[in-house]
């Protein structure tokens, strides 16, 4: 937190790391890795986020309260995306009974 004064060199090294990862993610996009293009793009973005959060935002030097708030935020984001995607991706697994469809003829007399 505010008490820790991080050496300038650390910030510059983190910045150079971020630049290197940006070049890497752009370069990887021009190589055919199939579905792993997306995996690589997200993994590199996650690594960049960690660098910014830990060093620039100082979470590496801050207390437990900030970490709990941050982890809670990402946990809820993960819930949001995971449950939404699990709904959409499994809808085609089972076909609803024909009687549920509005176009089906009424079965009652």
């Amino acid at each position: 937190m505010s008490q820790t004064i991080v050496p300038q060199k650390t910030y510059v090294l983190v910045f150079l790391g971020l630049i290197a990862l940006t070049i890497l993610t752009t370069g990887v996009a021009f190589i055919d890795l199939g579905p792993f293009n997306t995996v690589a793009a997200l993994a590199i973005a996650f690594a960049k986020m960690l660098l910014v959060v830990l060093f620039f935002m100082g979470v590496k030097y801050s207390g437990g309260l900030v970490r709990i708030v941050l982890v809670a935020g990402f946990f809820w984001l993960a819930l949001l995306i995971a449950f939404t995607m699990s709904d959409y991706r499994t809808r085609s697994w089972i076909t609803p009974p024909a009687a549920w469809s509005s176009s089906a003829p009424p079965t009652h007399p």
Partner: protein
Amino acid sequence: MTDSEAHAQDAGLVHQFENLEQQQEADFLGIWVFLVTEIMFFGGLFASYAIYRWLYFAAFEAGSHILNAEIGAANTMVLLGSSLTMALSVRSAQTGNRRALVFFLIATMILGAIFLGVKAYEYDQKFVEHVVPSLDWAPEGEVLARLAPGGLGHAQLYFFFYFAMTGVHALHMIIGEGLLLWLVLRARKDAFTTHYFAPVEVVGLYWHFVDIVWIFLFPLLYLIGGRY
């Protein structure tokens, strides 16, 4: 030390807090909770993006390839540079170096402005190519040939996401520029000391958060499905 003595001694201490440490703790918890609400705000966009990208992948890939990945990568580096100068601003405030603080704050503002300028150029290019959904949607020639296989309607959906996500991000940057200007004016009036500089840190955290949003937007919007 009595309450009023503590307040007389510490510039920047407001009356509802006992001392600067307590005030700073509240400031930090406040900005982090705000950033979590921002995660959820952008999270809604990212989640709906994930669904439609999965449903209409070919259209999203084609739309993504209309964007210029090199410009996007260069702009990402500009924004990362602004995060470096922002971190150095906070460090200058910690060490009580007012000249360096003002210098790095202005450097952050300039880099942020360059980013927004490039973004404006990119938006203009979308009007040139007529790929602005609703306002100017009439792709033709080579752009049309590239978008058509994935379905023009779904390609339009991709550009809706592009403008909504980068637009909300740019709005956050414009707000950040205003906050930075406010910090520069306060710093020039010597409002910050080595004990009291929480506003610099709080704005810094906001700025880094906006940077992180872009770190995800860049690969998700510019680099869909590879560019080979």
